[in-house]
């Protein structure tokens, strides 16, 4: 009964989010469990999303979910545009530096 093979998300979710809680003056609050749980949720949400992309195939199949195809396209475009903005800002910054009297 070795738990080392259990998935990280499964272990973290149980250890951090479940179990008997001790409150009162006998315990020392050294770790903000709320904060750690938040971290856990963020990670699990992203892991889950990745998994779903593979398992719930239809939700990302443009044929079955026409909305999804549109969304993916938009996401790509946003990414491209973001890249171009960064590029422009960089060029602009360089221009300003050149123009400034030294």
């Amino acid at each position: 009964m070795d738990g080392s093979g259990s998935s990280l998300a499964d272990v973290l979710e149980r250890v951090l989010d479940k179990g008997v809680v001790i409150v009162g003056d006998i315990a020392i609050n050294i770790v903000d469990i709320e904060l750690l749980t938040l971290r856990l949720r963020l990670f699990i949400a992203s892991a889950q999303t990745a998994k779903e992309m593979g398992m719930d195939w239809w939700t990302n199949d443009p044929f079955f979910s026409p909305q999804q195809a549109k969304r993916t396209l938009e996401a790509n475009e946003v990414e491209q545009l973001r890249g171009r903005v960064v590029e422009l800002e960089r060029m602009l910054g360089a221009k300003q530096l050149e123009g400034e009297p030294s």
Partner: protein
Amino acid sequence: MSVGLCAYAITRNHVLDPAGPPGVRLIEHRGLGLVVAEVELAPFAELEKDPAHWVNEPSEDDPLVMLARRHDIVVRAVFEHQPVLPLRFGTILRDEQAAGRLLADHHDEAADWLDRVAGHREWGARARQARPDKPAETPTEGLSGTEYLAMRRGLLAAAARTRRDGSTAAAALHEALSRHATESAPRARKSGAPLLDAAYLVPAGAEPAFRAEIERFPELAVEITGPWPPYSFVRLELSTEAVAHA
């Protein structure tokens, strides 16, 4: 702040397996035992630092992961021989007296819960739609507009049917698994959650039958995790505030 008393689980009073994790000992009180170990506190205190990278998947050498794994290992080592009530990660007690007081104040409650989970192990089940064969490529050339729309409508209806069947099957699977379990607990719902995501508290004798149920649902991709100590079934908060001066 250097060393503190970390508590892992409440169990019955017994001799700990000497081959178990080093440094772990039992604080005893009237037939109950609190599993504790002296730990360095600095790694715990540092867990909250650097929140920037928290969205990334933690690696096995992440401090949080190492401490969480250790917690699980200690709990499991006791759980192999005795019923346990796992404590929430990061429970640091003031001192040994505090540990004794915890057991004294909540003796009956803890003993009842231990009886309740004794002879059981927790299993997790996650079910998703089994991925069917990819729909055959339907030739669209030479189709009239009406024929094309009819074909597309047919395919979409089939996809909707598959989804609906999946939910029905997941509900049936949950019912079947619950028949072999003393208790079940739905896991936290997240966006994009599987059709079924639940934990089951299964008596040792019912485990083969519990696991066999999965074979009856070929339309689902079922993932079973476990056995676990009964983490999901000890919904218990032990407070010592009110009795501090009793």
